[in-house]
């Protein structure tokens, strides 16, 4: 008996070691980039999607997953998280977002990702296979250290696109410097979401704000000074870049400016937290002036900025759809309808949850957007192929296509519907156990007599 156990163990191990090829057999495949295919199979080999078709025959030893009635989708991508950097929101020792310092482009979120974070397995069971992880929450207390006591951040560092599984952060990496994070100033408070709660629009501020200290006029002046400061930093970085290229005498390496070079060369986009239409407009003007590529993060209104975004092909990462109106007299559903508004204006967008706790609800925020007017296919794209394109990795992830990385979820229904369960999950072709701290606690305490 014991011998048999050892023999079986050896056989399984040998199989696993020699061949991690999987055939997902007879499923309905939703590639997102093309029409759904009913009753086809997906061959996963060497971490990639090797083939998709109705008549793939599994070679000997290939693990076959019978998926009749199940659906295959690309794994979902959340474009706004702090995953791996923040474990327990209120416990400072477990939070690594929001470094001190105003301009910190040299900081890299990637290297602070804890692969053993309990959040990764929690979001995986809901089909999230990759995330953008940011060095700052960009609004929710982000900047100057999330726990207070520093200067407000302008540039918080480099956001990384990572898989939600891997042995090390290098192993998890998809794009280590997917974006530079800039928290654009705003008149009614700072940051992507206006810091301290809803702020009235500028018309009302101008009207009732007076002219003294703390007035609209003073706030406007402070705002313009901050923008000038950011421009100065970019100008200095450009001078540095030129000095370096010219091998100027006395040139000294500067890590901050060094980190800015890919931005100035338009190789790395700047993810700009900007919530109001007027701020977005100013951010676009800034990007034009500095000749940089930008992505707008967490807008709360688009208004007239929508046309500009479309015209200049600037994509947007929409924050939580399930959010309260920004102002007391805002329409109750203004956040619910914002994705539909972006879509109608022709603005390219993806979704982000911007709170680790709610990353697993990414598909449900997309569903709310559908309830309030966004076409279903667009919602699905906004959690798969759109973010892959926005973050420059659509050649690798974001759809079910031959040759792409096998980040796949196999579900028993529409992935945006709450009741749907993820039955199998693959990240880089590896089958992921759909368990986590929470499922273990559930089983443990269900069995308590």
């Amino acid at each position: 008996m014991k011998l048999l156990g050892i023999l079986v163990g050896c056989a399984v191990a040998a199989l696993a070691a020699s061949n991690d090829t999987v055939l997902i057999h007879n499923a309905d495949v939703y590639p997102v980039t093309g029409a759904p295919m009913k009753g086809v199979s997906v061959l996963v080999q060497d971490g990639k999607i090797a083939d998709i078709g109705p008549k793939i025959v599994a070679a000997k030893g290939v693990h076959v997953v019978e998926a009749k009635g199940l659906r295959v989708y690309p794994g979902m991508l959340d474009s706004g998280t702090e995953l791996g950097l923040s474990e327990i929101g209120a416990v400072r020792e477990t939070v690594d977002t929001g470094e001190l310092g105003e301009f910190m482009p040299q900081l890299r979120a990637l290297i602070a990702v804890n692969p053993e974070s309990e959040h990764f397995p929690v979001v995986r069971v809901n089909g999230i296979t990759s995330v953008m992880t940011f060095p700052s929450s960009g609004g929710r207390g982000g900047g100057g250290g999330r726990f207070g006591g520093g200067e407000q951040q302008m540039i918080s560092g480099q956001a990384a696109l990572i898989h939600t599984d891997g042995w090390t952060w290098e192993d998890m990496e998809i794009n280590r410097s997917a974006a530079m994070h800039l928290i654009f100033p705003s008149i009614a408070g700072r940051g992507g979401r206006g810091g301290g709660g809803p702020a009235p629009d500028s018309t009302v501020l101008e009207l009732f704000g007076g002219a003294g200290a703390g007035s609209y006029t003073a706030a406007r002046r402070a705002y313009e000074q901050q923008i000038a400061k950011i421009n100065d930093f970019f100008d200095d970085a450009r001078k540095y870049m030129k000095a370096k290229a010219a091998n100027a005498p006395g040139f000294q390496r500067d890590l901050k400016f060094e980190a800015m070079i890919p931005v100035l060369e338009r190789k790395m986009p700047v993810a700009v937290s900007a919530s109001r239409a007027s701020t977005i407009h100013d951010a676009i003007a800034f990007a034009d002036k500095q000749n940089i590529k930008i992505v707008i993060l967490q807008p709360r209104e688009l208004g007239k900025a929508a046309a500009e975004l479309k015209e200049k092909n600037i994509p947007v990462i929409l924050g939580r759809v399930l959010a309260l109106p920004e102002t007391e007299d805002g329409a109750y559903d203004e956040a619910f309808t914002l994705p539909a508004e972006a879509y109608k204006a022709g603005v390219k967008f993806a979704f982000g949850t911007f709170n680790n706790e709610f990353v697993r609800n990414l598909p449900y925020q997309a569903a709310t957007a559908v309830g309030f007017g966004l076409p279903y296919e667009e919602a699905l794209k906004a959690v798969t192929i759109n973010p892959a394109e926005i973050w420059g990795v659509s050649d690798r992830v974001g759809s079910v296509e031959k040759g792409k990385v096998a980040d796949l979820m196999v579900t028993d229904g529409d992935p945006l519907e709450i009741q749907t369960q993820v039955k199998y999950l693959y990240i880089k072709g590896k089958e992921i156990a759909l368990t986590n701290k929470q499922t273990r606690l559930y089983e443990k305490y269900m069995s308590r007599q």
Partner: protein
Amino acid sequence: MTKAKLLWAALIAIAPLGAETFVIKNATVMTVTRGTFKGSVVVKDGKIADMGETVATPAGATVIDGTGQYLIPGIIDCHSHIAADGGINEGSVSVSSMVDIRDVINPEDIAIYRALAGGVTTANILHGSANAIGGCTLPLKMRWGKDAQGMIFEGATPGIKFALGENPKRAGNPQGGRGGAATVQARYPATRMGVEDTIREAFNEAKAYKADWDEYNAKVARGEHPIPPRKDLKLEPLKEVLEGKRFVHAHCYRADEILMLLRVADDYGFKIRTLQHVLEGYKVAKEIAAHGAGASTFSDWWSYKAEAFDAIPYNAALMTKKGVVVSLNSDDAELMRHLNSEAGKAMKYGGMSETEALAMVTLNPAKQLGIDNRVGSIEVGKDADLVLYDKFPLSDYAKVQKVLIDGTVYFDRDKEVSGRPAKQAEKQKLIDKEKQNQQRQQPRGGRATQGGQGE
């Protein structure tokens, strides 16, 4: 209130229609207690008058076409802090039972209208969690447009908030907790041990106080003329707890503190009506069920603080399976607007049936608040608190179309949407008028600074 706030308040008021007779026809009616059927519901004099696959339409009734839509009982949120005008925490003392939410109800809080738009018809408005024993609480109906008195759920048993764990001990922490308020003088308790002691000390006093009153009342009953004991506004609500006249709603997270409170209540002979948040309730579900406490929890919140790190989304389902009456609450003006889809999560995590899940935001919170004779399900004779959704309601695809409270339409999405241009125009008119006023008053510019801009 600033001019700006007044201006907004003027803009947001939407007067509800008067109570009419309605027939909601051809909807999928999810009654919670009487199954789900395709049919109609008759609403008359503020109550559900009739329901079934076919009903007789009373003369003069307004017909609401529910074809393809879903009708559910009004959603009840067992834990909310809206409409309380910032009066959430009296944090200076560890026992603040002398304060009452009743005194700070703000019927003009826009959160009420937004909650309505999310299908909420009743909410339990609680004091905050800064004190081991907090303030008095009460449920409100979301009767937007009524005054503070008109909001109160008439006849409902009042409550009192308790709080265990990190929040009540924070004020006693020399580090000052999250905000780093090191300058504030420390307040007992600073540990979970101290929280238990604080509650025991209070009930020790309350028991003696009650004994004094019982003795006095006994003497009066015997025809004697004793001097009454001095009325104590702190102990009076605790005496009511001991008498079962006031419900305890206890904020708690960890299994240890939950068990502690149940044992304290056992010792002093009172009941915990609901455990609020109760994120580790799944670990002591057996003890909760044995005590008879209800549990009002979040669907899937976790990890925001240390005591929320063992939270599991299966909590609601597990406690239900172990015999606890479970509701899902919001504690949040935003989450409050989609408790319907929060209930859907109980189906995903732990396999609750449609009815079990829907009950978690309707019938079960009604039971926990002792108002299930009036609300929480669609039954003839119950209050006509109803929500009509365009799609299957336990999903984020669904949106609220109409909300009735006491048979009156308080939210109508069509009217809300079609009324927006007029509201926008009215706002613009008010802004223009204010601009003109300012120009007239300050011909030479340099106007005085307005105090109290915003909040």
